[in-house]
C-alpha cells in the first residue's frame, strides 16, 4: 500500500516538474520506424514501426522502410533495443549508501540515498542506460532494500520500486574493525542466527518476509567462498536469491544451481579468462544471468562491454542481449514495466546504428516514455547533416 502511494506521489510530482520542462524542449513524436527490433527472446526481427501511447508502447508492427512515414522518426539502418538496465548501479547515490554502524540494517532503503536530479542520469541516458537497480553498499551483512529506478526525462529519475530486493552482503567490506563481525566466519554465524530468528518470528519484517518467501533477495558475494557461505546460510530460500558475484568460475558453483538468477559484471578487458567465461558457463548451465555495469563506478558503456566480452567467452548473443535488458528487469521485479519492447510497457527505446553487442555501434537516439531525450534536436540535426 505504502509502495503504491509513494509511486503515485513521485510519478505525479515528476509529471508536473521535470517532465513538463522536457515537453517544451523536445518535439514529441508518436512513432519510430526502425530497421531491426530486438524481440523478447533477444533476437532481432525485421523492420518495424513502434507507436507510443503516452509513456507506453502502443504497438509494434512490421513496416516498410522505403516509404516515408509521416510524423515518424525514421532510422532505416537503426536497431531498436529496450532501454538498457544496469542491475547493480550507483547512479545518483554514490558515496551516500555505505553506512556501516550496524551489521544488520534491514530497515535501510537505498532510495533514500538517491539524488533524483543527479547529473549522472543524463550521462546514463547518453549511453542508453534507462533503468537501474540501486542497492545499498555491501558493507553490512543485511544491507537493506534496493531501489529500482528509471529515467523519466532528460534530467530526472522516477522510482519504480523503493522496496526492491533485500540485499545481503558478503566479503571483505562487511568485516569491520569496530563492530561485529570482523571475519567471514563471524558474518556467517551472524547470518545463521538472524535467519533462525526470522523463522521464529523475530527480527525486521523484511527478514521475516524473506524467510517466508514473499520477498526476493540479492546476495552480493566477493569470493567463491562467499557464495558457498551465502548458499549455506540462505539455503531454505535459495529460489528467491539472486547472487551478485563477479569472480572466477573455478567450477560451476553447485551452490548456485537452485538460485533464482546470478548477476555478473562488469566484465573488463583485463580480467582472467576464467572470470570472463563465468557468464557463459552459468548461462549454459541453465541459470538466468544478468550482466551488471556498476555505473558510474565503471563507465556507462561497461554494460555493453560486459555483454560483448561475455559473448566472446561463450555466452550466446541473444542471451547476452537479454542479460542487459529483460533479465535485470525480472531480477528487480519490474519486468511488467521495462526490459523489453512489448506493447503496454514503458516506451524506453535505444536506437543503435548496429547490434549493441558490436562496440562500434553508435547510439542514434534514446527514447524515454516515448520521447526522445538523447540526442537533443540541434545535435540530431547536425548528426543527420554529417551522415548525409
Amino acid at each position, binding site marked *: 500500500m505504502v509502495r503504491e502511494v509513494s509511486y503515485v506521489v513521485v510519478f505525479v510530482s515528476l509529471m508536473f516538474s521535470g517532465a513538463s520542462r522536457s515537453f517544451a524542449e523536445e518535439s514529441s513524436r508518436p512513432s519510430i520506424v526502425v530497421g531491426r527490433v530486438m524481440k523478447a527472446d533477444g533476437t532481432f526481427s525485421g523492420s518495424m514501426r513502434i507507436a507510443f501511447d503516452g509513456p507506453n508502447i502502443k504497438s509494434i508492427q512490421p513496416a516498410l522502410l522505403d516509404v516515408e512515414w509521416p510524423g515518424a522518426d525514421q532510422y532505416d539502418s537503426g536497431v531498436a533495443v529496450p532501454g538498457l538496465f544496469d542491475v547493480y548501479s550507483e547512479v545518483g547515490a554514490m558515496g551516500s549508501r555505505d553506512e556501516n554502524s550496524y551489521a544488520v540494517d534491514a530497515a535501510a532503503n537505498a532510495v533514500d540515498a538517491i539524488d533524483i536530479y543527479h547529473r549522472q542520469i543524463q550521462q546514463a541516458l547518453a549511453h542508453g542506460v534507462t533503468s537501474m537497480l540501486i542497492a545499498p553498499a555491501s558493507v553490512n551483512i543485511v544491507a537493506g532494500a534496493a531501489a529500482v529506478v528509471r529515467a523519466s526525462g532528460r534530467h530526472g529519475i522516477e522510482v519504480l520500486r523503493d522496496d526492491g530486493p533485500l540485499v545481503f552482503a558478503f566479503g571483505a567490506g562487511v568485516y569491520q*574493525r569496530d563492530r561485529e563481525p570482523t571475519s567471514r566466519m563471524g558474518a556467517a554465524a551472524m547470518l545463521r542466527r538472524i535467519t533462525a530468528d526470522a523463522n521464529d518470528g523475530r527480527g525486521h519484517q523484511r527478514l521475516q518476509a524473506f524467510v517466508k518467501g514473499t520477498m526476493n533477495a540479492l546476495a552480493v558475494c566477493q569470493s567463491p567462498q562467499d557464495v558457498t557461505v551465502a548458499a549455506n546460510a540462505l539455503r531454505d530460500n535459495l529460489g528467491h536469491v539472486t547472487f551478485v558475484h563477479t569472480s572466477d568460475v573455478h567450477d560451476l558453483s553447485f551452490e548456485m544451481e537452485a538460485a533464482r538468477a546470478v548477476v555478473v559484471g562488469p566484465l573488463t578487458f583485463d580480467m582472467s579468462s576464467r572470470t570472463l567465461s563465468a557468464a557463459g558457463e552459468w548461462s549454459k548451465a541453465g541459470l538466468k544471468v544478468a550482466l551488471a555495469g556498476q555505473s558510474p563506478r565503471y563507465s556507462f558503456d561497461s554494460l555493453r562491454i560486459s555483454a560483448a566480452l561475455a559473448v566472446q567467452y561463450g555466452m550466446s548473443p541473444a542471451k547476452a542481449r537479454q542479460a542487459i535488458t529483460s533479465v535485470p528487469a525480472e531480477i528487480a521485479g519490474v519486468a511488467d514495466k521495462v526490459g523489453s519492447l512489448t506493447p503496454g510497457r514503458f516506451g524506453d527505446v535505444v536506437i543503435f546504428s548496429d547490434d549493441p553487442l558490436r562496440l562500434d555501434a553508435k547510439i542514434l537516439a534514446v527514447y524515454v516514455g516515448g520521447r526522445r531525450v538523447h540526442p537533443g534536436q540541434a545535435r540530431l540535426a547536425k548528426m543527420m547533416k554529417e551522415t548525409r
Partner: protein
Amino acid sequence: MSTKLFRHRGYGWHVLLALLNCVMLPGFEAIADKGEASEVIVYADHIYIGNGQTVDDGAVLIRNGEIVAVGTDVKSAKGATVVRIKDASVTPGLIDANAAIESSDLMTRPLGRRSPRAVLHDLFCPRHVDKISVGCCGSRCSRSLQHANGEACRECGFPNAAPPLEVGNRSWPTDVENSSEVIPHTRVLDAINLRSPDFARLAKGGVTTVFAAPDSSAVIGSRGAILRTAGPMKERVVRAEDAVKATMGTEPSWRGGRNQMPWRSRVTFLTRRPTTRMGVAWIFRKAFYDSILHDKGKELGGADTPPRASLGALHQILAGEIPLRIQARQQHDILTACRLAKEFGLSFILEEGTESHKCLDEIQAQKVPVIFGPLYIDAPGSRRFSTEVGGSLLHTFQRLLEHGVPTALTANELRDEDGLARQAMYALKMGVSFNEVLRAVTQTPSRLLRIDKEVGTLEKGKRGDLIVWQGRPFDADARPVVVMSGGRIVVDKRPS
C-alpha cells in the same frame, strides 16, 4: 601452410589446457568424467594396509568408490580401470588431523617459508603487487584501484575505516573473528575457500582428508571442519562442524586481535584481554563457568562474559557432544590444559605438544591423545615468530609413541617439501618405525577424527582413498604417482 601450422598450434593448446585441468584441478568436471569408472584395480608390489599389515604382490579393487577387496588374488571385471606402475607401493590416503588451510582471499599465511611478497607475486601479476605498497586512497590497500574522488575506498573502507594491516601480513583475516575471545559458535568452514589451490597442493602430496583447523587467535576458538582435498565439490565436506579448538599459551594474546595495541591509541572493541597466560586461562575458565551458571538459569555478568551465541556450543562441549582440542606447546601450557580439563571434567585432544616429552606422565595419566607436529629444529612458517617453540627436540614424537599415547602426525600449514609425506620422512629418520609412522598419518588421525569407519586403512568397505607410490613410501626419492579419492584418480603423474 601457415594456416595449417596455426591450427595445429591451437589444437595443442587445447590439449595442454585439458591436461592442465586434469592435473591441476581435481574436482573439475573433466576429472570426474575420467575417474568415474565403476571399478578400479590397483596393482602393487607392496600394499601397506595401514594397520601394520602388508600384502606383497597384490591388488586393491575399488568398486563405486568403495574398497571391495585387498589381497594377492584379486580379480576385476572386464573394462575396469587398471592402475599398474613399476615398483609400486600402495598406502591409504594420508590424513592431516590439524591442517591449517589457506583461508583468505589473499594468501595471508606464510606459505611454507616463502615471503608473503613472493606468494603475492605468484598470485597476481607483479604490476598489481607493486601497487600494493600504497593505494591511491593513501592507505596500504591492495585493491584501491578505481574509486571516485572523495569517496571511501570500496575495498578497505579507508578513510572511514582503519586501513587493513600490511598486505601479506594479515590483510583479510577471514578466519579470525575478533569480536570475542570465545567464539565456538563460528565455523572455520565459513572462512575457507573450498576452491583454494591449497587443496590441490595437499592432494598432490597424498593428503586426501584434512581436519581444517581454526586459527589460534581465540582462547576458545571456532569449530573445525573435516574436508576432502579432492573430488567433486559436492562431496568435499565430510563434517561441517567438528571439534572446537582452544588455545593455551601466548598466541591468543597477540594473534589476530590487537589486544594490547589499539590502532593509533584509539581504544576500540578489540582492545581487551587476555594479555597474559594467566588471562588466557581465566577466560577459558570464565566461559565454562558462565555456561554452567547459564544452565542453572542464572544471569550472567561481569567482564569477559562469553557472547550469548556461544553458550549453546559451550554447553555441548561440557556435555561431551562437541569434542575439544587444546593447542599447547610449552610444558606449563600443556599442564594448564590438563588442569583446566580436569576442573571441568572435559576430555580433550592435545595439539602441537612441542614439549610433551617433558610431561609424558601427565599426558599418559589423563589419557590425552596428541596431534603432534610439525617436526622441526628451526621452526618453519608462522612458528618462526612464536616464542613457544625453542624447546623442540627431535625425539618427542617417538617418546609419545613409546609411552603408548595415541599420536597423529600433522604438517599443519606446511606444504610440499615440508608437507605431511615429508613429515613422515623426517619421523622415519628420527627413529620411528615405518608402521608407526604410517599409522600416525592414516589410522590414528582417522580415529581421532572419528572417521575411522570410512577412511584410514585399506580394508573392505572403506572409501577408496589411496596413494600409489613409486618406490618405498616416504622415501626421499619416492613420490605419490597416483592419488585416488573415493576411487577417482585425482592426481595422476604417470608418464603418458
